[in-house]
């Protein structure tokens, strides 16, 4: 992780009519950092990502979001987004899905072939390269999305509760794979989750959000050594600390 600022969020405010959803949120994400954003369900985590990417034509009510010091431009900035739902293109095979972003970015065919091959190996889907998404299991589908995202070597990877629908054993496996990919590529990651254990396991820093209107309750640096152990007392201590911050009961 370098000291260079990749994403700068300043006084981000978003209202839907009179409903204030995001209330004056400011924070920075450094290049190569793995940031987890946690908060109670419905606190506006996804709205934050949608504001960042303008995916649903969300315009900020106030404040600004800069990537490399410039306003977000999806054509210019190399951003990848992994959704909570499996978002593989059903009409494309596994390898076509992984190659999609590279083709859109008009990379040379040799590079596309090489990258696809590498990603297939990394996510363990080489044998399934010619399968269609409808023929794959949930974990394989999410692997396809991850491989497609990493294939374009994004400068920023956004992940919106990508493992939310998976059981624990599968989630642990995919989390480990993600950490390996992140360490290998050095991509800046903003990972949104409501699962505190997941946030502690993955992150270098955790941003804890409040209930609506959402603001930042606390930023916590996570310096636990890797590989992390969920039974480690230090791990549990940090998990309890974050839990105390977001619990409303």
């Amino acid at each position, binding site marked *: 992780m370098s000291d260079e600022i990749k994403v700068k969020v300043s006084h981000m405010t978003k209202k839907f009519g009179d409903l204030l959803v995001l209330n004056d949120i400011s924070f920075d994400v450094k290049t190569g950092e793995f940031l987890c954003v946690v908060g109670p369900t419905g606190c506006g985590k996804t709205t934050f990502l949608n504001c960042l990417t303008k995916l649903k034509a969300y315009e900020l009510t106030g404040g600004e979001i800069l990537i490399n010091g410039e306003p977000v431009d*999806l*054509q210019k900035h190399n951003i990848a987004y992994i*959704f909570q739902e499996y978002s593989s293109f*059903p*009409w494309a095979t596994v390898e076509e899905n992984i190659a999609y972003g590279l083709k859109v970015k008009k990379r040379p065919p040799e590079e596309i072939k090489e990258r696809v091959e590498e990603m297939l190996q990394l996510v363990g889907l080489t044998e399934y390269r010619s399968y269609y998404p409808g023929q794959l299991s949930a974990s394989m589908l999410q692997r396809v999305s991850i491989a497609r995202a990493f294939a374009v070597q994004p400068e920023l990877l956004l992940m919106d509760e990508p493992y939310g629908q998976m059981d624990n054993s599968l989630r642990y496996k995919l989390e480990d794979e993600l950490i390996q990919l992140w360490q290998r590529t050095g991509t800046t990651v903003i990972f949104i989750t409501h699962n505190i254990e997941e946030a502690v396991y993955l992150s270098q820093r955790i941003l804890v959000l409040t209930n609506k209107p959402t603001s930042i309750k606390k930023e916590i640096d996570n310096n636990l050594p890797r590989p992390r152990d969920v039974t480690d007392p230090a791990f549990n201590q940090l998990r309890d600390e974050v839990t105390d911050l977001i619990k409303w009961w």
Partner: protein
Amino acid sequence: MKKKLDVEKMTYAVLAIACFFIFWWFITTFTPAKETTPGPVEVIQLLFTSFFEPIGSHVITGHLLVSLRRVLVGFSVATVLGIVLGVAMGASKWAEAIFKPIFELLRPIPPIAWISLVILFFGIGEVSKYILCGIGAFTNVTLNAYTGAQNVDPELVGCARMLGTSERDIFFRVVLPSCTPQIFAGMQVALSTSWMAVLAAEMVGAQEGCGWMIQRGSDTLNITLVMVGMIVIGCVGMLLAAVMRVIERRLCAWNIMES
């Protein structure tokens, strides 16, 4: 396993057709219907002889090819126009606002109702027959393409956009492939409707074609000829539907494997 299933299916199909012919033979041999309705043997005999002896100006294959040409020309033009209009209405609010009310107004009108108007404007030549076949196909293809384009998963569009796809490319790379299965479903129905339309079109001011053949049989009280025409249309319709399914399997393999 699959081969065994295919053989089983084929056996059932052959048995079902055999039962149909036995039933037909029984009705036309042992019931009062024998006075008015030809049996399967007579119909099949005429069917075979009509391959060599002309009915009107052509042998049966000639009539069939004429009808087929009319259907395919009308169907192809209507399919292209239907896909363009349907996808445009589904993907653009402006196109929907402009074209949907007109489309909804014209949609319930069956192709047969257009015959007089089409003949008035285009005469009794080939063009009017192509147009009538096209009208039959156009509605189904447009409607299915419209529904397909409306139901494109917004998450897939978002995903493509995030990966840097331009708005124009989203149309070709996401919207169009997404609605292909639905477009094909519409095309299957459209093909049948085109056949219905061609028969209606050939019954008015035509000198050739399957519709003309049936009309001639009807005018001369030759029910055997009517039934030959019906069987030929049934067989060709079945064949065309099978061809469509093969094309669909090629283009929408992902959808078939999923289901």
